[in-house]
């Protein structure tokens, strides 16, 4: 290791109470995020990636609850903080950009008002100071100051999302968690937004957790990438290792399923369907769809283990050597 970690998630469990019992949406997840890196979380719908970051940011609402684990941020367990202490963390230390945040901009207020409100809400500054902070944030992200006087409908989609990022960045948090920040955007807008996130890391040393279902987005900007399947992280490693030397059969299948203009190849997809959190398969949760499954896969859940330097996988194929 030796690297400076900023966030350590240990055995985090986020469950939802349902009439059929607990839905174990995030089930015993552990990972470390290092300072000033872009840490990607990939996975298909329903794998628990959004719930995982909601758990980290303590936004899980009933019937959801945190069933166990620790979220260590700079040494303190966020899950043990009081609501007031957590308020001191949110925005100032860790900012979170939920999925679809840009459509939550108020259409009848200028960007200025909305940025000021957000800043005042999370710090003890006057309106004038807040406006200064908003200006500074925009210029730090290379956005023109004129957007302050504009209404959301006057902004392009990419510009809206970058205003959201600037607002999240305004109080200079050390960690920004962005959930699907480019999902609804056109390619050029996506590129602007991803470039903005990269700049936060490059110029300001901000750590970014980037949740996205699109593997190409991760290939473009991540330093390290975690892949989730059925409520668990099944592989973590440097992004080029995960793409060029994927260890888990699911990661392999996922990468082989992506059509790309860079290469014309037959894509097959992954046979079978993703399981339900109410009824995860026993053993390895991927075994019903896995072409390599053995007896042990049906009975024993594989642990996430480091099998190559810095490259972790939860798969019985790599046991014992």
């Amino acid at each position, binding site marked *: 290791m030796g690297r400076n970690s900023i966030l350590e998630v240990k055995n985090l469990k986020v469950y939802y109470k349902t009439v059929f019992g607990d839905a174990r949406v995030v089930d015993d997840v552990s990972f470390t995020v290092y300072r000033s890196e872009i840490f990607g979380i990939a996975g298909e719908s329903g794998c628990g990636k959004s719930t995982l970051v909601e758990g980290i940011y303590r936004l899980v609402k009933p019937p959801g609850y945190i069933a166990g684990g620790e979220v260590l941020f700079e040494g303190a367990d966020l899950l043990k903080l009081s609501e007031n202490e957590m308020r001191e963390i949110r925005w100032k230390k860790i900012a979170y950009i939920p999925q679809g945040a840009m459509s939550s901009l108020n259409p009848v207020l200028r960007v200025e008002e909305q940025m000021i409100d957000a800043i005042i809400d999370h710090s003890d500054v006057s309106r004038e100071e807040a406006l200064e902070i908003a200006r500074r944030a925009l210029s730090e992200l290379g956005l023109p100051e004129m957007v302050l006087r504009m209404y959301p409908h*006057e902004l392009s989609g990419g510009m809206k999302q970058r205003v959201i990022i600037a607002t999240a960045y305004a109080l200079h948090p050390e960690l920004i968690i962005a959930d699907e920040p480019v999902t609804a955007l056109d390619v050029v807008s996506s590129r602007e937004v991803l470039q903005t996130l990269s700049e936060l890391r490059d110029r300001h040393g901000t750590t970014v957790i980037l949740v996205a279902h699109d593997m190409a987005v991760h290939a473009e900007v991540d330093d390290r990438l975690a892949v989730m399947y059925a409520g668990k992280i099944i592989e973590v490693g440097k992004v080029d290792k995960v*793409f060029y030397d994927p260890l888990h059969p699911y990661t392999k299948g*996922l990468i082989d399923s992506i059509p790309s*203009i860079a290469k014309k190849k037959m894509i097959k997809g992954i046979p079978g*369907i993703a399981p339900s959190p109410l009824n995860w398969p026993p053993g390895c949760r991927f075994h019903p769809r896995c072409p390599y499954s053995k007896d042990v896969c049906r009975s024993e859940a594989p642990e996430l283990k480091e099998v190559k330097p810095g490259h972790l996988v939860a798969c019985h194929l790599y046991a014992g050597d």
Partner: protein
Amino acid sequence: MKMEGTSLLELRNVTKIFKGGGVYGGKEFRAVDEVSFSMPSEPSILALVGESGSGKTTIANMILGFLKPDGGDIFFKGESVTSWLQRKPKEYRRKVQAVFQDPYEIYNPSYRVDRILKLTVRKFNLAASEAETMRLIYEALEALELRPQDVLGRYPHQLSGGERQRLMLARILLIKPELIVADEPVSMLDVSLRAVFLNYLEEFKSKYGISCLYITHDFNTAYYIADKAVVLNLGRVVEIGSMEEIVLRPLHPYTQMLISSIPLPDPKMRWKERLELRKLQVKEIRPEKGCPFALRCPHATKKCEEVKPPLIDVGGGHMVACHLYG
């Protein structure tokens, strides 16, 4: 009936104008501006590629007859869509089918799968008897690798996302249209399901002769299945060519920008240069004259701001609307 060489689908100078309310200051809004392209009579997949606001969904709605063009005309097998819909609407609906983004919302939730499919057979008079109806349904389901005994008795909500998607395709196969209009059919699907869906569209074309107008913002999936592409920008066609040509040798600066901005699933092929952020437009602006891309184009001249560039053939069926090639 069919004339030799008649296109399956042809759009000739199709224009759609929306009269704006407050947001556009009551001004006219040309969602689709003199769009022309065609699909050949032999089975093919044509990608209609554009960003949001390009007018691609409005074009789909006009082809399906949900909206009427304000100018120009759309022809299906040489006859205008308006005339098809007046004279033989059912036949048109059977020949031209839509594929939707969300395969959940199109089914009546209180009908079981067998009833949904039987109604389809009855509506389009696809079978003469009950036995034939069931035979067709079994065939269609099996072609999509759905087990009839597993799905027929279930309600749509009891099917998985992947099964609903297949059910929708099975319904299409039952109808065997000549053209599918698919508007962003895979944008909501996970990649592992996406591959399967795209492969079925290809199989529909090669095995059953069903053509497809594949409407998308995503060049990656378009490149995978389409033969030809039409690129739209703010309601106008900027480039037409074989899918290969458009991706490998894009001519229009807009297409070039789109292609170079596609994230590739390969960490060794990251974007090399930065997009110059300050130069990009902040607002969504739709110029009233000239080239729709002039405001963002690195090569724009005075002429580009004044005169709409016509679509010209630069050879081999590759067409581009740009003064650079005029």
